[in-house]
């Protein structure tokens, strides 16, 4: 029997386990369709705020010599209302709507905007490392995480994912709090706070000075987070961080992820990366005689 690429992250059912990560190519429905046709199992939108945000001035993205990217796009986005209008016609593409905000009410208001949209899940960005008052500043505050997750869960029947990352507290506690407050799944991880300085110009290169490191450099860190979360909690996990090959994908499944997201690999290998990874996973499954993804999830935890 041909193995299946279908996977489920709790209530979320996907045809293919590789998604587009938030913030990558994520502002237009036309592009979402294209990515879906290229093999992405779902697309996560840019993190949306109530109002449109311009984000930081350029430079906002650059690669790191030796691998990876640093960005401080600053969560630029057209705002939830505009965005909801844009995706309203969508029927085909599984869209996961990523949201940022500072207080529970922000999230409640935004979710209302999507009443008439087909939303596969919401992903709460509790982990952007370079924008004040949202992202990690929320994720590092357990009381706020509890309030936000509870409020969001009360506002919608759509599954809700919390996206965590390395901040100034123990991200495992954020995961625990989110679970206690009813979260349906966890995405781990976001970018890692970092900086690039130019020796010649003698300045930080990003206009915001600090940015988030993504791509291959953070893969071993992301992989350990998935392993740590799945060792400590019983919650569906979406792995994210530095994934660029089918082998990376398999490693995240083995560590405990039921699905994965990628972003930076698109900068390196363009959007054919979805198809390449799907193909590689299928070949691996055939060779190892698996019929579905779930059989692999967490295998690396056996002693």
């Amino acid at each position, binding site marked *: 029997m041909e193995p299946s690429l279908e996977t489920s992250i709790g209530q979320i059912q996907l045809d293919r386990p590789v998604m587009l990560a938030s*913030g*990558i*190519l*994520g*502002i*237009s429905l*036309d*592009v979402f*369709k*294209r990515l879906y046709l290229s093999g992405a199992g779902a697309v996560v939108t*840019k993190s949306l705020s109530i109002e*449109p*945000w*311009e*984000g930081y*001035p*350029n*430079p*906002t*993205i*650059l*690669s*790191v*010599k*030796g691998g990876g*990217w640093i*960005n401080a*796009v600053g969560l*630029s*986005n*057209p*705002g939830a209302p*505009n965005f909801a209008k844009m995706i309203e016609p969508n029927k085909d593409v599984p869209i996961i709507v990523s949201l940022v905000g500072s207080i529970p009410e922000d999230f409640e208001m935004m979710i209302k905007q999507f009443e008439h949209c087909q939303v596969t899940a919401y992903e709460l960005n509790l982990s952007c490392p370079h924008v004040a008052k949202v992202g990690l500043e929320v994720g590092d505050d357990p009381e706020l995480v509890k309030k936000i997750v509870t409020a969001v869960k009360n506002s919608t029947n759509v599954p809700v994912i919390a996206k965590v990352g390395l901040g100034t507290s123990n991200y495992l506690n954020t995961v625990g709090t989110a679970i206690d407050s009813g979260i349906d799944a966890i995405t781990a991880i976001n970018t890692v706070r970092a900086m*690039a300085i*130019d020796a*010649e*110009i003698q*300045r930080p*290169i990003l*206009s915001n000075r600090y940015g988030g490191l993504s791509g291959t450099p953070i893969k071993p860190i992301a992989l350990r987070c998935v392993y740590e979360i799945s060792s400590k909690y019983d919650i569906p996990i979406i792995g994210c961080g530095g994934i660029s090959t089918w082998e990376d994908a398999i490693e995240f499944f083995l560590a405990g992820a039921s699905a994965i997201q990628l*972003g*930076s690999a*698109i*900068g390196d290998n*363009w*959007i054919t990366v979805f198809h390449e990874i799907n193909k590689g996973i299928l070949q691996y499954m055939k060779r190892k005689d698996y019929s579905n993804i779930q059989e692999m999830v967490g295998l690396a935890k056996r002693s």
Partner: protein
Amino acid sequence: MQRDHNHPTIVTIEKVIDETPTVRTLIFSDEVMSEALPGQFAMVWIPGVNELPMSIMISKEPGKAAFTVRKHGLASTGLFNVKEGEQIGIRGPYGNSFDLKEGKLLFVGGGTGLVPMMRLLTFVRPRDDVTVLIGAKTKNEVFFEDLAKSLLEEHHHHHVIVSTDDGSYGEKGFVTDVVEKLLSKTHFDGVYTCGPEIMMYKTVQSANSRHIFVQASLERMMKCGVGICGSCCVGTDLACRDGTVFDGLHLSKNKEFGYFHRNKAGILEHY
């Protein structure tokens, strides 16, 4: 270590040329950029100011390249003000290039959209019949006329036509009216255009309606240049990675080309 094209390489501006009161060409040494294909662009970091996309301009000397910038807002004015001896960061080159046909060719450029046209002209063969159309609002905004002529010196058949909206120099009227006139008179084997989107839109329409091969190089808000950030999307296309050069037929199916672009927040705005 090998050069990382997506990380700024620091270069020193060696020479600054005033093209018009608001347009300058900045020349620097860089092997990689000197070999960029026509239509390719760089992300240019003006330290302490901003970073912005710039078409890669030719330089007469080998191993050198240039940018030709029109002073406009914060970023372009920052670049415009860079003095000889000062440093900027460049990454790229990014984007695809033109598909240069043979025979009777038309190049339509407006403002700094002439930059890729100039690089493309260096690839034209002496036996091609070349017409260059330069559009501008008024006389003192015209530049690259002499450059275009000198690049075509060796060509038997070539014309460099300037049109100004106010008629203060060359033909009077919109450059797209000249395009329409030319295309209705003679068959062209290829039309290439870069400049204000309305100009490109009309040029593409004129050519498409006559089944003439046409390509346009699009400008959109750009942050990454590599197809990560999404800010440059035009319908299903990413201008930075799928383009900037697109075929006219492809563009005719794009609902945003000629009508919308996205602002810094990613919201669609009418032209």
